[in-house]
């Protein structure tokens, strides 16, 4: 570190602050998922518990929303990726003027606000349904179908952008060469262009899946009375929250971490393969280590760890601890009551005016689900 200039201290401090800013909320969220307190918080720490995961999975609305989201996201991938590919191919075949026009048309859905898309999807398909004489039970009034239709309109444009970027690096001479060597146009497409687009198909599928899964603006309209994961989550947050959302965050963070680590392993492996430094590398030169850092091995190991943690979690019983906490609370309540009674008696004895007895006191004695956390002085120690 540059001790001479003192820059090191500033840089370290800044990085620390930056990472706190970035990860602080996540870390706190993760911790709250394991606190038995029914409001998501770290202090006071009550009991280590895994019950919020149970609460999460018992939430029917959220779970059915999740199922809907998955069905929609998979359908969107299946529909939007081929549409995006077709659009990109059409664009790369056209003359410059038509190309500019078509590009504008295809890209517009991205620029239109999602809210507008959502509403117009409902109106359009509703009008369409009426014009073909379909009733309200028909597909044109089904939230799943409308959401699918609404999302595909703009998510296929995302896919198209991914394909366009990749196609720009394709040398059309290769297709000509394939034709010249006797391939039919179909064979040239399958054997030359598609393999070249392979990585782009992967990223387009990933991107469209995420875009569909996390979409809210459009979906909140098109899903009608139904629920997807995001809309269910949003309404739950609006109606008050409990640590089961933290539990959800833990799961999502876990999945992301596993994905990131496996991806990193894959990239490193590919890099070493590409540069051909396999033999020289200390890790990749050793057969045991090489198998160990293979993305698949890493994935299996991480999955195992996650599975083990889950199993341990289901075995954990916070009952005893919670009982203790409950008893403590009861005892304290009792204490407070006692104290009050003593005060009252003292007051009676002193014949003091009623005004000195604070009206607040009896309320505080009420058992509250938050342990009185929201009272102005509820957390003051030793009261």
């Amino acid at each position: 570190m540059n001790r001479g200039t003192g820059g090191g201290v500033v840089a370290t401090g800044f990085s620390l602050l930056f990472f706190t800013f970035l990860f602080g909320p996540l870390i706190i969220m993760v911790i709250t998922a394991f606190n038995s307190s029914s409001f998501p918080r770290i202090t006071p720490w009550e009991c280590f518990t895994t019950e919020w995961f149970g609460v999460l999975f018992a939430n029917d609305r959220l779970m059915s929303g999740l199922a809907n989201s998955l069905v929609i996201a998979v359908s969107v991938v299946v529909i939007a990726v081929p549409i995006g590919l077709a659009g990109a191919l059409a664009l790369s075949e056209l003359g410059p003027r038509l190309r500019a026009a078509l590009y504008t048309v295809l890209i517009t859905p991205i620029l239109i606000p999602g809210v507008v898309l959502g509403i117009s999807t409902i109106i359009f398909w509703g009008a369409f349904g009426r014009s073909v004489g379909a009733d309200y039970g028909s597909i044109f009034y089904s939230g799943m179908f409308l959401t699918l239709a609404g999302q595909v309109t703009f998510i296929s444009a995302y896919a198209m952008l991914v394909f366009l970027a990749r196609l720009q690096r394709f040398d059309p001479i290769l297709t000509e060469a394939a034709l010249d060597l006797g391939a039919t146009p179909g064979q040239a497409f399958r054997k030359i262009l598609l393999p070249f687009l392979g990585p782009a198909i992967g990223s387009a599928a990933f991107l469209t899946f995420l875009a569909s899964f996390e979409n809210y603006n459009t979906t909140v309209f098109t899903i009608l009375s139904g629920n997807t994961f995001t809309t269910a989550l949003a309404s739950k947050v609006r109606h008050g929250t409990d640590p089961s959302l933290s539990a959800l965050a833990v799961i999502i963070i876990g999945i992301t971490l596993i994905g990131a680590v496996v991806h990193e392993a894959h990239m490193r492996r590919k890099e070493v393969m590409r540069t051909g430094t396999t033999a020289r590398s200390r890790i990749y030169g050793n057969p045991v280590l090489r198998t160990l850092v293979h993305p698949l091995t890493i994935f299996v190991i991480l999955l195992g760890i996650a599975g083990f943690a889950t199993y341990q979690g289901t075995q954990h019983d916070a009952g005893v601890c919670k009982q203790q906490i409950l008893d403590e609370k009861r005892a304290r309540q009792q204490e407070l009551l006692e104290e009050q009674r003593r005060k009252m008696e003292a007051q009676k004895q002193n014949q003091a005016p009623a005004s000195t007895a604070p009206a607040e006191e009896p309320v505080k004695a009420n058992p509250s689900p938050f342990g009185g956390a929201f009272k102005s002085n509820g957390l003051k120690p030793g009261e």
Partner: protein
Amino acid sequence: MATKDIVLDHVSIRFGAYTAVDNAHLVIKGGEFFSFLGPSGCGKTTLLRCISGFSDPSEGRVLIGGQDMRGIGPNKRPTALIFQNLALFPLMSVADNIAFPLEVRGIGRKERRKRADELLDMIALPGVGDKKVHELSGGQRQRVAIARALAVEPDILLLDEPLSALDLKLRHHMRTELRAIQQRVGLTFIYITHDQGEALTMSDRVAVMNAGVIEQVDPPETIYNRPKTSFVASFVGETNAIEGKVAQQTEALVSVETPFGRLQGRAAGGRQYKAGEDCILFIRPEQLSLEGGTPNTLTANWVKEEFEGNSRQLFLEANGVQLRLTRVNLGGTPDNLSGGTVSLGFTPEQAIVLPHGALAGA
């Protein structure tokens, strides 16, 4: 062995109002090494793409083995094209590249591999089948592209400046190699280049093109020694061009009135000139000598000299005409001519008189 003739029957190719190939009319014989030679942009690639089936002529016909090729796609023609940038498939191994034509014809994996290995042996690259294309050197890629084209078992191999991306030494080596491969497989090679050295060393016959027009079709020696147009004379090899007017013609000898006085040369192709006609007299630098010859003697001022090892180039100037003279280095002491006037000569048989026309690079 394949002996399909290729006939270009009054072929013209237009892009809108622009004529890229103008009335090409020639026959390429089966088994021939035939080159199209011309400067950049003269329509060579356009013509080649028309023969291989990527476009149809705007006018005229392309016949291969007597069959009109109009409407027949590149995958159905007995031709294989080697592209200017080779167009090897980067995602496939070398063997898969070579076997690609067999794969699309539904031939089994084992048989394909066997055939690919045979072809690799033929191009003297055994054992590289499992490598990726980017692991090969430029010259090796060149040969792989040829092997892949040969896997189609075409009757005609079309090559579009395949050596232009290579360095000089490799280029010279590949010339010999290509010629050897052609003689071994006995196919018709149609070779496109703007490098006259390539065209002259490898070809049985050369067609010289300028601005879409085929100016001359002849064996290399004829092209060099008896050019038919002033473009061919000036494009192929170094030459001195002296413009003038025909004074008189006696049989094959033409007297030309030039800024250097009256000079004599032979009339190209037994042509008859009218007196007073504009013409150009061409004389090669290696045929100019420092001894004044009769009746062609001219004087010029020394400008500069370049030593090239096996020869010495003299640059001279007189009457607004630049002249160039090549002296073969025989190991003697160099003539000290710097700054002075030089008198030159050549025999009438060495010079060639052509009607006035476009010059290359002018």
